Each structure stands twice: as structure tokens, then as C-alpha cells.
């Protein structure tokens, strides 16, 4: 067969590499442009042809932005919310997942179906009644609102349950016979074994909360409460002609997430694959 000859196969390989490199460059281009523009003088951002290497390099932008934007406040608020949400989600999610994965009792499967069913329900459809309720509790315009909004999602329960089911039941059976309570089994046997899944859930939840725009948009009106996404968006509106500075702000808002992603990539990828395969 012609397709088996090695020169053709080799050129096929070369073609695949070419496709991969071009695709990678294409996908990354907006980020490259963002970083490059953040190091330019404002009037150099839009030039024809595009200037890919800033000259002179304007490191000043990264100093100036702290004076013009309330970055410290935004980052602090975002951190508070993200850490609290992640903590609650991981704790309650992994706890509930034990009930779903390792215990048998009536109503369990129906309850789980309820969780799964809400995956098909967009938050946008019930944001109004939810807003009224949370406002009714007097939590509108507080960071607590955002924490409540994000902390009890079905995703964490789902991901942890999938992982727990890959842990052999014989382990928990043995512990049960040794007289360990169910809570003890969760804390001393299952949790230590599920560190990779906990890491996945932690990273995914943290990044999601960090990036959330709609929740803060609806609930946080006072400037001192703003998160980084709200702040950045208002900065864009206020300084809409300062293209270079806007790009600087964007780079700074993405940077922490990029770092977390590159360090914890493995967990990210595996977490998503786990929810997908049996999905």
C-alpha cells in the first residue's frame, strides 16, 4: 500500500508538526499581543504593521498601574472570596461525595440525580430569585454573597464521587470491621487517598472563583468590595484610550491564574478528564 511507504509517512509527520505549531501560535497570539502591548507606549499599540517587539520597553506601565487602579484592594477581595469558596467547596463536596460513593441508603440515587440534573439548569435562569433571596438576608453588597453563590456547586460532589468510586470498597470494609466509624473512614482512609482529586477540585474551584465576573457584577456595588474582574472592567471603561495600560492590567489579572495553571496543570487536566469520561 502506498500509505505505508516511509517517505510519505515521514512527510505526514512533518505536516502534523507544522499544523500543531501553526495552531499553537494562532491560539497564543492574543496573549502574546497582550503582553507585548503592555510593554509599549500607548501610541505604539496600534501600528501598521504590528510591532512585535516593543521599543523602547515600557516597564513603567507596570509601576503606573498601581497608582491608577485599586489593584491591591481588588486582589485582596478576590483572594478572600476565592480561598473561602474553595475551602467550603472542597470540604462539603468531599464530605457529601463519601455519602454518595461509599454508603448505601434509600433515596441516595434519586438525590444524586437531582444534583446531576442541575447541570442542565443555567444559573442565568434563576439568578433573579436567588438575588432576591440573598438580598432578603441582607447579604447583598457583601463578599458573603459571592461565597454563598459559588461554594455549594454540584461539580465538587460529582468530581469527588467519581474519584472515590475508583478506591476499592474493601479498604473501607476492612476499616469498618476494625471498628472505625464512617466519619473516621472518611477522614483517615479516604481523604488521604484522594489527594490528587482534592488538588484538582481545589485548583479548578479557585480559578473559577477568581475569574467569576457575573456574580460580583450583580452583588458587589461598592468600590472597596470589587474583585479583580470587576475592577479591570471598570478600569477599561475609565481609561478607554490608555490601551497599553489596559493591557498591563489584563496581564496582571491573568498572571496569578497562569502561574497556578502551569504549576498544577496535571491536576487540572485529570480533574476534567475524570468528570468527562463517565460524565
Amino acid at each position, binding site marked *: 500500500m502506498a*500509505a505505508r511507504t516511509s517517505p510519505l509517512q515521514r512527510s505526514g509527520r512533518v505536516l*502534523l*508538526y507544522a*499544523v*500543531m505549531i501553526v*495552531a*499553537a501560535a494562532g*491560539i*497564543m497570539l*492574543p*496573549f502574546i*499581543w*497582550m503582553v507585548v502591548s503592555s510593554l509599549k507606549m500607548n501610541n505604539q499599540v*496600534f*501600528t501598521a504593521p*504590528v510591532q512585535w517587539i516593543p521599543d523602547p520597553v515600557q516597564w513603567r506601565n507596570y509601576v503606573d498601574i498601581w497608582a491608577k487602579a485599586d489593584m491591591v484592594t481588588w486582589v485582596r477581595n478576590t483572594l478572600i472570596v476565592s480561598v473561602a469558596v474553595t475551602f467550603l467547596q472542597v470540604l462539603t463536596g468531599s*464530605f*457529601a461525595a463519601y*455519602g454518595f460513593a461509599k*454508603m*448505601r*441508603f434509600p433515596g441516595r440515587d434519586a438525590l*444524586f440525580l437531582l444534583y446531576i440534573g*442541575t*447541570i*442542565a*439548569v*443555567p444559573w*442565568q*435562569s*434563576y*439568578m*433573579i*430569585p436567588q*438575588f432576591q*433571596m440573598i438580598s432578603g438576608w441582607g447579604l447583598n453588597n457583601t463578599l458573603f454573597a459571592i461565597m454563598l*453563590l459559588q461554594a*455549594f456547586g454540584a461539580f*465538587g460532589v460529582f468530581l469527588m*464521587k*467519581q474519584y472515590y468510586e*475508583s478506591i476499592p470498597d474493601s479498604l473501607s470494609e476492612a476499616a469498618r470491621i476494625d471498628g472505625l466509624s464512617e466519619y473516621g473512614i*472518611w477522614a483517615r482512609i479516604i481523604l488521604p487517598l484522594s489527594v490528587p482529586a482534592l488538588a484538582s477540585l481545589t485548583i479548578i474551584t479557585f480559578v473559577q472563583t477568581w*475569574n467569576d*465576573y*457575573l456574580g460580583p457584577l*450583580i452583588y458587589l456595588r461598592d468600590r472597596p468590595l470589587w474583585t479583580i*474582574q470587576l475592577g479591570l*472592567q471598570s478600569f*477599561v471603561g475609565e481609561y478607554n484610550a490608555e490601551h497599553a495600560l489596559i*493591557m498591563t492590567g*489584563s496581564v496582571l489579572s*491573568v498572571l496569578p491564574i*497562569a502561574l497556578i495553571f502551569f504549576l498544577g*496543570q496535571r491536576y487540572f487536566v485529570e480533574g476534567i*478528564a*475524570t468528570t*468527562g*469520561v463517565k*460524565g
Partner: protein
Amino acid sequence: MTTPVVGNQRTLGFSQPAPQQPLRKPRTSLKLRNALVGWTFILPNFLGFAVLTLGPVLALFYFSLTSWNIFGNAEWVGLENFTRLVEDKSFHKALGNTFYYAALHIPLTIVVSLCLALLLNQKLRGAAFFRTVAFFPYITSIVAVAVVWNMLFSPEFGPINQFLSLFIDGDLPGWTVSKDWAMPAVIIVGTWKDMGYYMLLFLAGLQTVPGELHEAARIDGANAWQRFWNVTLPCLRPTMFFVTVMVTIQSFKVFDLILVMTDGGPGQSSLVLSQYIWQKGFEQFELGYASAVAVVLFLICISVTVVQFLYNKRKEA
């Protein structure tokens, strides 16, 4: 992490039910105890979930039948909000645009992410790096993404039109400032942002395709395209189902991307359902009416999911 159990059709992943025990007294009390303990595990999360998600979903249907507004009195008006929807030009526009977005974004995202996954599955050197690159847009915030793309799309000075002008004489697309091109611009960015996520799902699915099947097909003389069509795709069906459901819901609820990129404009040319709910509810405080729009969005997402579920069931049988 261990590889999850794969290759079968346990779509919801329930474990096997317990074998039936003959009912005897000590058993029942043990069972009761067991159920109570089970509930305590689920309760902390379920309380939050029930109050913050299930409650509002139920409340939504009630509110959609009232004239609830800024003054706070929700009076029962029956189906009045829904008859008003039938006449509402802006609602029609939003509904149309939502379907427009979904009609392009769903197939585009599936095809592109499947292609990326197939490419990555070729075990090329540098594939890990490529995976990182392709996934990166998904984890960056919508605001930063929108800001950058808006500048790239800038009709007069933006790099995209500069590039296009090398090939096209005459009129270039106005992208986000043009009535006709705002939706395509948003769809391009939406696809670019989401494809990495679905690529990962497909990639996980591809690992479950047995190598022997490919080998057998090759021996039978099937070329690469035939192997893809007759071996890879059928084996990917569970993944394909999950991806289709997820990307469909995601498309119909599209909101923040449009809010920060075009704000529904110019005019109403990129107004979508979610944004219309937002405008009616949080800007004009017609909460009852906004709830009716939200019920429509809810019903679309649920029915599309149910249809896909039934279709998958039938194929499975």
C-alpha cells in the same frame, strides 16, 4: 490519579445497589442508622445546594406568573407575561441571536476541539506543551479575553483587519462595531476560549478507543479516514454525548462573553436571552417579566438536554 473506569455505558456512574436483605428487626435499625449517617455526610453540601439552587429554581416559576416589579408587590397575573413575550420584538431578537450563537458555536466547537484532540493523540513530541497552550484560553478570565480581542478586532487599526487586508481588497468586516459582524466575532472568541476544555474531554475519550480495533481495521485495508469514521467515532459516542450536552447548554446560556465584548450591541444585534433577563430584571426591575424570559431559557436548556439524552438512549439500544 488512577484511570477512571471507562469504556462502558455507565453514564451516571451509580454503584451497584445493595443485595436485598431479608427484613429483620436488628437489620432495620441498622439500616436506619446507616441512612442517618449517610444523610449527615450529604447534608452540609445539600443544604447550601437546596437553598441556593433548588429553591430559586422553584421560585422562578412562581415569579414568572406575577407582575412583580421594583415596588415589590408580586401580584398573580397568570400567563400575562408569556403572552407579552409573544409580542415582544426585543425578546424575538434575543431568542434569534441565542439560536444563531448556538447554531454556529456548537458544531464549530465540537469539530475544532475534536480535531485538536486527534492531533494531540498522534503522540507527537511537544504534545504536552500544545495541550497546555490550547487549554490556556479556557482558564483566563472573560474580561481580559474580551479586552484583548476587542483590540484585535478593532476595524481600523486592529491586527486582524490588517492581516485580512493583505488578502482582501475593499470592505473589511467591522467586527464588534458592525451589526452583521458582531455575532461572528463573539462566536469566534467563544470557540477559541472553550475548545481547550472539550479537547481535554475528547482526549480522555480517545484513550478508551481500543488499539486492536484500529489495527484490525488497518489490516482489513481501511484508510485513515475510514478508520476515523468507523472505529474512532463510534467508540467516542459516550464522550460525544457528554460534550454535546455540555456545549449546548453553554451556548444557550452565553452571557458574560457578550456582556463584556459587545454589551449586546451595536443596537440589539448581539443581544442574547441571558442578557435580556439581566436587562429586564436588574436594569428595568421588571422582575416578573424577566422571570418569564428566564423560564424560556430554562425550558430550552432542559428540553435540549432531554432530547439528546433520549437520542443517546435509542442509539445505545
